[in-house]
């Protein structure tokens, strides 16, 4: 039995076969156009709505001068000879490294009857207004002399690497047993406030502040009239201890460094000055002790700093 072969494929195809898919009836470039148009509309929406996100603009600080040295002099407590000496000491140091100085009299500021030692806070604020582009402000008490002019503050103390290695972590802010301790994980760049401790507590005779919004906030807070009227025993120093312990936004910007880094003492309750330290302070002058004693002490260092600066 012989079956027929299955029929072959037709050799004359039907003349008008419909297109295989309906989508291709739309012209391809028209689809492309629609896609591009849609994407560009979304992009425009994103552009115009995203562009409006408002962030308070961070002021750019150029760093000229890099450091401003601030001192508020209480003319009544020490002799004019001493003051002239201290001023020229700071000016010489500033000239060497291109810094600026802001040397003012404590009486320039209206303190509403609170102790003159408070003047350091508005003096710092004043320096910030005067040099808005400075990177650091170094408050150095009048009873101190810069002894080692070769050290630049912004490198020697304030560079992030140095800070990270120097800052004392997990240290009770007020010795010996405050439960508030310095942060143990703090980056050098986040530090805005560097100071030291002596045997009695925080020392506000020499500290460095990084310029910025935080500095304004900190100084204004410190200068709050309610702190000035509270009769803290050590005035601004105890007010500082208070705000550092009660307000974490301040504690989180603070680094305590070894005392001799910026605050070596010539004698008394603290780490004592050794050769090549940047600064020597005379705590004997503090708190209304005998001015002549203070000047005696300073005289010992007079030839030494002049020699170090190459002046004599």
């Amino acid at each position, binding site marked *: 039995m012989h079956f027929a072969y299955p029929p072959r494929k037709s050799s004359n195809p039907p003349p008008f076969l419909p297109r295989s898919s309906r989508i291709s009836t739309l012209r391809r470039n028209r689809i492309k156009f629609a896609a591009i148009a849609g994407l560009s509309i979304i992009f425009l929406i994103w552009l115009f709505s*995203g562009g409006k*996100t408002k*962030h308070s603009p961070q002021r750019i600080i150029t760093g000229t001068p890099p450091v401003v040295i601030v001192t508020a002099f209480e003319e009544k407590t020490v002799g004019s000879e001493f003051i002239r000496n201290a001023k020229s000491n700071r000016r010489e140091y500033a000239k060497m490294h291109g810094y600026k100085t802001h040397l003012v009299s404590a009486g320039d500021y209206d303190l509403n009857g609170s102790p003159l030692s408070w003047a350091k806070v508005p003096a710092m*604020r004043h320096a910030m207004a005067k040099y808005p582009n400075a990177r650091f402000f170094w408050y150095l008490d009048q009873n101190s002399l810069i002894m080692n002019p070769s050290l630049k503050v912004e490198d020697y103390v304030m560079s992030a690497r140095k800070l990270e290695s120097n800052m004392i972590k997990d240290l009770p802010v007020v010795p010996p047993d405050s439960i508030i301790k310095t942060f143990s994980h703090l980056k050098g760049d986040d530090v805005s406030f560097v100071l030291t401790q002596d045997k009695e507590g925080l020392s506000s005779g020499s500290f460095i502040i990084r310029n910025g*919004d935080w500095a*304004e*906030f900190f100084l204004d807070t410190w200068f709050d009239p309610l*702190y000035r009227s509270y009769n803290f025993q050590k005035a601004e120093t105890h007010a500082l201890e208070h705000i550092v312990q009660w307000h974490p*936004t301040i504690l989180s910007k603070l680094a305590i460094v070894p005392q001799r880094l910026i605050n070596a003492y010539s004698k008394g309750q603290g780490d004592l000055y050794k050769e090549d330290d940047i600064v020597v302070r005379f705590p004997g002058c503090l708190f209304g002790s005998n001015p002549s004693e203070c000047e005696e002490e300073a005289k010992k260092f007079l030839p030494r700093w002049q020699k170090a600066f190459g002046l004599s």
Partner: protein
Amino acid sequence: MPLSRSPSPIPGGGWSSPGLNINSSGQSSPAAASFSGPNGGNVTWESARLKSQGVSGYPSFSTQNQGFFTRHMRRISRSLPTFQVSPDQYGEKEKLVRSKWNAPMLDRIRGIAARIGRKWKIRMLIAAIILFCYLLFWLTPLGYHYRRTTWLGGGQKFVIILAANVGGGVMEWKGAREWAIERDSVRNKRKYVSRWGYDLEIIDMSTKKRYAHEWRESWEKVDSIRNSFRKYPKAEWVWWLDLNTFVMEPSYSLQDHIFNNLEKHVYRDINEYNPLNISHPLKGNYLDEASQNVTGDGDPNSVNLILPQDCSGFNLGSFFVRRSDWTDRLLDIWWDPVAYEQKHMEWEHKEQDALEQLYTTQPWIRKHTAFLPQRKINSFPNGACSDNGMDPRIHYNQNDRDFVVNMAGCEWGRDCWGEMYNFRELSYYLNRNPWERFKEDLIAVIWFKLTGQKVKL
């Protein structure tokens, strides 16, 4: 009848035939009792056979046209694909060249479409797109998500904190009125928030007992603002609202009402309205220029705290704070034991007075604080601040459609619930939709004139 598989016989008689359940609707089945098939007496095949023969136990009025399948057979089969042999290919009739879906409905539509001109096609397409968008955005949650997204509607940038449960807790009993106030206030904020895609954080103020030993009741505001910033990481602005507030105009978005044009709505120079007589700007030979300027640095982006003032000074019943380092610092410094120890006898309004104190003495606060005209977010009812009569800067006016009303101080000698109820009803009345307006302002009035009867439609 097309079957996917042939019916198979079942022992005991009858057929298991899934496609043939035609004894379902409205037919009589006289054979049910006489034959017990697999379906528990409902003999499918048997009844179908009887039916197809027209033999029925009760032949009186049962027609051929009963049951779903029989009734819809034609329609169903018509929608099934059919094979059509194209007429010009009669040479190869056994070969099915093409098959197509050939539903008459579709054909008809195609015919209509072919007859419509191109212009009308485009118009209809546009109409369809509009309809589609309407469905998409108003009937689905897509519109809500659009309003929330930070880079589209931006609703996620705003968090409303509502202080609830004031005066609750163990020590003070809450009566029915207090519960009703709370319910209405919360519902009002919920509605507002869901309309614009904001977030609502309801704070239980009864936790203030936690702060009592530190003498810092009512500073928990600070903690709840801080928590909200943590809880809603995309929030830029936090809007604090007291419980006794009512959003009168839910159709105002915060963006439109205030934030899109911040510099236009706020004032930074407190001398514009200065009930506390704070001397502004601060003067000091040590201050920078921006701190001594009446408008700070003048940049609207540097505003971090926006609050209204009432007749007695700052009002913290309704205010905005922005997420920023500045705000962190303010919240941190707001309560200080040394300040509190000296001032707690004078500070009747606690955190409000503390803020006034900070504003007065600290330049860094002034630079970033701005004020809103009170009626922008915090209109008072007639009972509050009314010692000097009505003040257009303070009191609510329904003709101006004020945004929010704050029944401040109603718990001292005024009727909180009564005020809340009145404002709620007023808000509903002012925000009637067009249909309600048509009914109540036109039909009901006409009816009243005609018949002298008041009707509620």
